[in-house]
């Protein structure tokens, strides 16, 4: 269907793609795997003719014996959406917030198919039905903000496949979604590719995602394809060292030797948290009880909206409880000003987004020293910032730099350093490694394990993905609709899940088949 031959690209003097060759056959699923900056998305954009301004591409992208790189823009506009469809990573922002979903799907049909609005909307209805958004529940007049992330991604898929293109490019289509939603979306993509005989280029950083999906796999590093072939062969043979690193990092578990000491550090008893919403009340936490021991890591797993982040907020004393009690070190945690700073200083938090959680106009030393407002800034604070930087594997001289000078993994290290600087007893890690590449994730997990051993830290490790929590948690709690539905050691919870929600989470975990490893 589409063949890439020696595709290279240069952006600002830097090579971003180097001799990329790929064959995307009808009905086949090709997994393109690599870390951020490896050139995966650039490859996709080059096929689409949407490379950033100033990029120079050479080589060939052949479709119907025509080189797409040579086509003038108006010609490319006729190919985009009609012959090649594309969906992107972030479903929350990929749709126009001011346009009903029906019109967004119909737009491509009207543009290429020359249909009038009524006919295009009728066809859009059919496409939305096909991606699992059936008529009565999902009228065409819905706006994107009325849909969940997974549903929005389905709309994006409906848009991309509206004209039955020969090639669908899916660039990290499930990275921003829950594991259970991910499993459903991947399933949908697979079905569509098979039924329509469409070539699917699935771009992801996660080898496990590709393992269950792709016929062929290509591994990218530094703008090159370092290894490619039938999926099973690539996984079994692992000719390139980089492939071996990726596979090893995919299910990485750091070496840990936990020794929790009684009494428990954190006790949550019968916690209730209600939200008042325009459409009525919502019980986000429904009599939740849990404990975290000193030096223990507890994993908290559940789908989006199950109450994980609400639980984190009430534990941190950011939201009040309607009933129940939270105690840290025997002291009551209360929201607002009544909570003593000395108690607040006992816990810190690391969030998911290493890009959004720092003020871009502050230097690292000021960012890292901020928690000192809870304890009073000691005279040697600069030395402490330096020591914290070293502890997370960065240089003391980094203190004078700004946040944009760091990569995602480095930023997450900085977030950990910021949490560590006042020596808390508990660190809440809210999806702290979910946005990281697998190899970086493995390094950060190692770091967390070492810091725990050195300082006797307790972790509350929150994630939607059981496989992330598995390597770090001594105990796993599974949450659903504001309740904890299952609890136990990770091997037991994953190996023999009892509650249906846990079973669903386990089934949705992307895994590399055991016989391939």
């Amino acid at each position: 269907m589409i063949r890439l031959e020696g595709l290279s690209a240069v952006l600002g003097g830097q090579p971003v793609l180097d001799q990329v060759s790929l064959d995307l056959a009808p009905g086949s699923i090709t997994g393109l795997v690599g870390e951020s900056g490896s050139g995966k998305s650039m490859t996709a954009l080059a096929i689409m003719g949407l490379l950033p301004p100033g990029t120079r591409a050479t080589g060939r992208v052949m479709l119907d014996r025509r080189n797409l790189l040579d086509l003038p823009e108006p010609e490319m506009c006729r190919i985009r959406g009609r012959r090649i469809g594309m969906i992107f990573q972030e479903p929350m922002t990929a749709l126009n917030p001011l346009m009903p979903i029906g019109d967004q799907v119909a737009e491509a049909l009207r543009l290429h198919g020359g249909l009038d609005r009524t006919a295009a909307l009728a066809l859009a209805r059919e496409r939305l039905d096909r991606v699992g958004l059936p008529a009565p529940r999902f009228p065409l007049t819905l706006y994107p903000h009325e849909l969940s992330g997974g549903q929005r991604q389905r709309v994006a898929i409906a848009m991309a496949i509206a004209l039955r293109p020969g090639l669908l490019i899916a660039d990290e289509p499930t990275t921003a979604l829950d594991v259970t939603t991910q499993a459903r979306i991947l399933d949908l993509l697979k079905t569509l590719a098979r039924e329509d005989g469409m070539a699917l280029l699935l771009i992801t950083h996660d080898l496990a995602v590709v393992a269950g999906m792709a016929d062929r796999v290509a591994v990218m590093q530094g703008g090159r394809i370092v290894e490619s072939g039938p999926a099973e062969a690539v996984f079994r043979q692992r000719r390139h060292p980089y492939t071996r690193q990726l596979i090893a990092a995919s299910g990485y578990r750091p070496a840990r030797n936990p020794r929790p000491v009684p009494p428990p550090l954190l006790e949550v008893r019968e916690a209730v948290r209600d939200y008042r919403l325009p459409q009525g009340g919502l019980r986000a936490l429904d009599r939740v009880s849990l404990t975290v021991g000193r030096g223990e890591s507890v994993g908290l797993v559940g789908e989006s909206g199950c109450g994980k982040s609400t639980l984190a907020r009430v534990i941190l004393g950011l939201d009040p409880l309607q009933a129940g009690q939270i105690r840290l070190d025997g002291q009551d945690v209360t929201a607002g000003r009544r909570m003593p700073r000395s108690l607040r200083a006992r816990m810190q938090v690391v969030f998911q987004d290493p890009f959004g959680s720092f003020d871009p106009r502050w230097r690292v030393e000021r960012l890292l020293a901020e928690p000192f407002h809870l304890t009073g800034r000691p005279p040697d604070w600069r030395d402490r910032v330096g020591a914290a930087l070293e502890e997370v594997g960065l240089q003391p001289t980094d203190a004078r730099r700004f946040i944009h000078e760091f990569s995602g993994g480095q930023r997450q290290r900085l977030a950990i350093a910021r949490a560590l600087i006042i020596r808390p007893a508990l660190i809440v890690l809210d999806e702290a490694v979910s946005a990281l590449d697998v190899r970086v994730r493995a390094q950060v997990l190692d770091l967390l394990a070492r810091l725990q051993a050195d300082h006797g830290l307790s972790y509350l490790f929150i994630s939607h993905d059981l496989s992330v929590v598995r390597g770090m948690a001594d105990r796993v709690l599974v949450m659903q609709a504001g309740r904890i539905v299952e609890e136990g050691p990770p091997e037991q919870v994953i190996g023999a899940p009892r509650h249906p929600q846990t079973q669903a989470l386990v089934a949705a975990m992307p895994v590399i088949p055991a016989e391939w490893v």
Partner: protein
Amino acid sequence: MLRYLSRRMIVLGLSLLAASALIFSVTELVPGDPASFMLGTGAQPETLAALRQQMGLDRPLPLRYAAWAGAILQGDFGTSFTYRTPVGAMIAQRLQVSLPLALMALALAVAVALPVGLYGAARRGRAGGGLAMGATQLGIALPNFWFAMLLVLVFAVRLRWLPAGGFPGWSDPGAALKSLILPVVALALPQAAILARVLRSALVETQAQDYIRTARAKGLTSGQTLRRHALRNALIPVLTILGMQFSFLLAGAIIIENVFSLPGLGRMIFQAITQRDLIVVQSAVLVLVAAVNAVTFLVDLAYGAVDPRLRRA
């Protein structure tokens, strides 16, 4: 939508109430007694007291506010201390000039700003875009009275196409419109320049959004994405500025009114202040506040029309 509307209505009513109380007490607190101003410095204390009583100035403040506000609710704005004519009629007469002036200037500003902003965004980083934005920079920098005088010199003095000033009244609509053309242009162009810049920067920001990339992936050209997807999303900041501009144009046109000798609202307020004609000042300011609130209300409705997320908020 109904809920959104009713909530906006309540806010509108409350802000009018608060504004009227504020206007009344502030004008009462400013030094300068209208009675003594009317009688001059040589007035006998008894005459002054009599006049104060006649004007109701000897009554306590809350009572006077209640009387004033109650009368206004019935459409009675009181009588001017200076001219002895009903204030309501005075304001209505001035609005006949100021309202069309502001509306036409706003319409012209939008008509100019929309294409310029779109062009500037579409040609960003190229010569055309730079030129368009340079022109708007100039439009903001030029003082509007200077620009107004330039217009008078060219179109009235030199070419004799349009009158240099004055307002003949609406009995002859053609002549009335003709006399408003130059003031409208003088008022509108700086506003158009501001509006075009806001629109362009909002468009540029919107064009970096993911859904623009999605639209491009569907096969829309960059021009189509700009018009179909970016423009509407960029309208929110533009509407905000537009609302603020209308309020400014209604009463802030005083300099332009002076340059063109137009009997507008701004000049009337200015004269009333110098003459301590408090009742005129209070009423005119209240009418302005009401107009500003009404515009804010309309802008809120426009937000709701543009953005479905706000309708349910």
